[in-house]
């Protein structure tokens, strides 16, 4: 579809508009939040504990007297960062392996797919836990890396399948008899035809990375220092926020994580409608 048509459908799709607004707002919050919050350090003890939301503490304080709003905006930064870096890494690896395996075929394909299948069979969470537990120091960058390096297999398989089918299209043959190099064909002919798919893969990887990070954080294998939504969730659970009636602490991190991931999936569904004419409401 042309750019004009894409823009037309993009701006009219309710799901996409909604998702863009929510994500835009959250990104804004993550970028600007730490500056507008009256408190700079999310780990600092800035007030009395157990305080519900008030003018001094917009989302109240936790058991230790740390400001929850500050924690939230810093945590949001971390989580979005991990989603972005980890998700991008997984997408790029998956694409590369999928394209090369699908286009080249033969023993390269066999080798890459063997590797992919092995990694796929190993339970990701267990792998992440083992790696994370062995690291002496865990920063958010390392966390993004290990998530990125373990999340790509399904992408590789899906991209390979699409590549295999696109490879047989006659415009690929035409590129071959025009003496085009294979890499140029993959990125010039095949990938652009899958852009909608690549887009959607990235969104899913983004969401998946956030969830994986939250999982690690929750069991205590998150970043050694710093704040993330998963760590907030962990602490709220460990310190019985629900039982103590501290809803501002108990609900906030989980709700925000859910909001991000759900919004991403809604965006994906919306994009699918845009790209797949049969799903569009005329």
């Amino acid at each position, binding site marked *: 579809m*042309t750019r004009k048509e894409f823009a037309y459908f993009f701006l009219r799709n309710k799901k996409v508009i909604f998702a863009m607004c929510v994500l835009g707002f959250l990104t804004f919050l993550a970028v600007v939040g730490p500056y507008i919050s009256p408190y700079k350090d999310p780990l600092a003890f800035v007030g009395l504990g157990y305080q519900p939301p008030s003018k001094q503490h917009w989302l109240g304080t936790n058991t230790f007297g740390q400001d929850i709003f500050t924690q939230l905006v810093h945590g949001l930064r971390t989580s979005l960062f991990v989603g972005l870096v980890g998700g991008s890494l997984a997408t790029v690896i998956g694409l590369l392996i999928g394209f090369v395996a699908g286009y080249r075929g033969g023993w390269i394909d066999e080798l890459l797919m063997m590797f992919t299948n092995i990694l796929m069979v190993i339970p990701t969470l267990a792998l992440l836990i083992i790696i994370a537990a062995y690291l002496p120091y865990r920063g958010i960058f390392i966390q993004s890396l290990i998530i990125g390096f373990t999340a790509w297999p399904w992408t590789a398989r899906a991209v390979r399948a699409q590549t295999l089918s696109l490879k047989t*299209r*006659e*415009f690929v*043959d*035409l*590129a*071959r*008899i*025009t*003496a*085009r190099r294979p890499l140029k064909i993959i990125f010039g*002919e095949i990938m*652009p*035809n899958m*852009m909608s798919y690549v887009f959607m893969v990235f969104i899913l990887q983004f969401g998946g990375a956030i969830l994986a990070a939250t999982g690690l954080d929750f069991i205590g294998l998150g970043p050694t220092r710093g704040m993330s939504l998963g760590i907030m969730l962990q602490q709220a659970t460990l310190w019985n926020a629900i039982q103590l009636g501290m809803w501002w602490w108990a609900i906030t991190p989980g709700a925000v994580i859910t909001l991000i991931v759900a919004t991403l999936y809604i965006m994906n569904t919306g994009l699918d409608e845009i790209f797949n004419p049969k799903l569009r409401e005329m």
Partner: protein
Amino acid sequence: MSFLVVQNLTKEYPLGLLGKEKLKAVDDVSFEIERSKIVSLIGESGSGKTTIGKLVLRLLKPTSGRIVFDGKDVFSLRKEELRDYYRRVQGVFQDPFSSFNPIYKIDRVFDMVFEEFLPEVKASERKARIEQVLTSVGLNPSQILGKYPHQLSGGQLQRILIARILLLDVELLVADEIISMLDASTRVDILNLLGDLKKRGMSVIFITHDLSLGYYISDEALIMYRGSIVEMGDTEKVFRNPVHPYTRMLLESVPEVGKKWDLRERFTPELIGGDSASCKYYDRCPIRERHCRTAHLQMVEVEENHKVLCLKAGA
């Protein structure tokens, strides 16, 4: 002067669970093409004609045999020599809509040719050449350039692909069923275009399942059946005096305005035979004999420039 020589070309595909069985898409095929000649490769589905086209275009690798172009083995060419090969040997495929990448404007197919083969040509000169080749295939550049494939008709797209070839000095064109997806009223014009190209010195391997098209445009015809050439030679001779039972059956099956079939007669050209017989047409052959199952087959010359792969030819 033969400038394309195909020698004992075979292409096998492994079948079955362990790849033990082999499907011979092309089975020990040999033929030659001279300059300024149109040769039809005629066959039904499974005959191997498309596979041969792809092998000549180096889109597939043969299991055995050689293709020699201008003295050199085509599959031993690398890098610059390969690029040179494609300057002289090109192809046009069956589905015009599949031959263009739908997300780009059609101009791109021309741009790619300049990028890969004629990088020294300046931008302004490029535009002039593109317009010139478009006009020479009967298209109006202002109606074609800048458009996306889905905005044009199949006939226009096929002409664009032929125009693309004219940017180079192509000596051999592999045309694989290039008009089967076009409307009847456009087909003949594209065929005529091929005929004009031949007059300018190009040779064409015209792959088709439609005998009337083959008869109309080609100088020589190769009739293929299940991977082998069963009859070959001068078009007029093969069509006027078909010897192989398969060729005869094909000619009988072509519907023609003015010639009516006898529909009361049961016509069942069913196969589902095994490959066990030495002659591939054995199961369906009305004149078969016992020794056709086992005897070794060779091309028999029935008249000048007319050969048949049949044990009973020339008998």
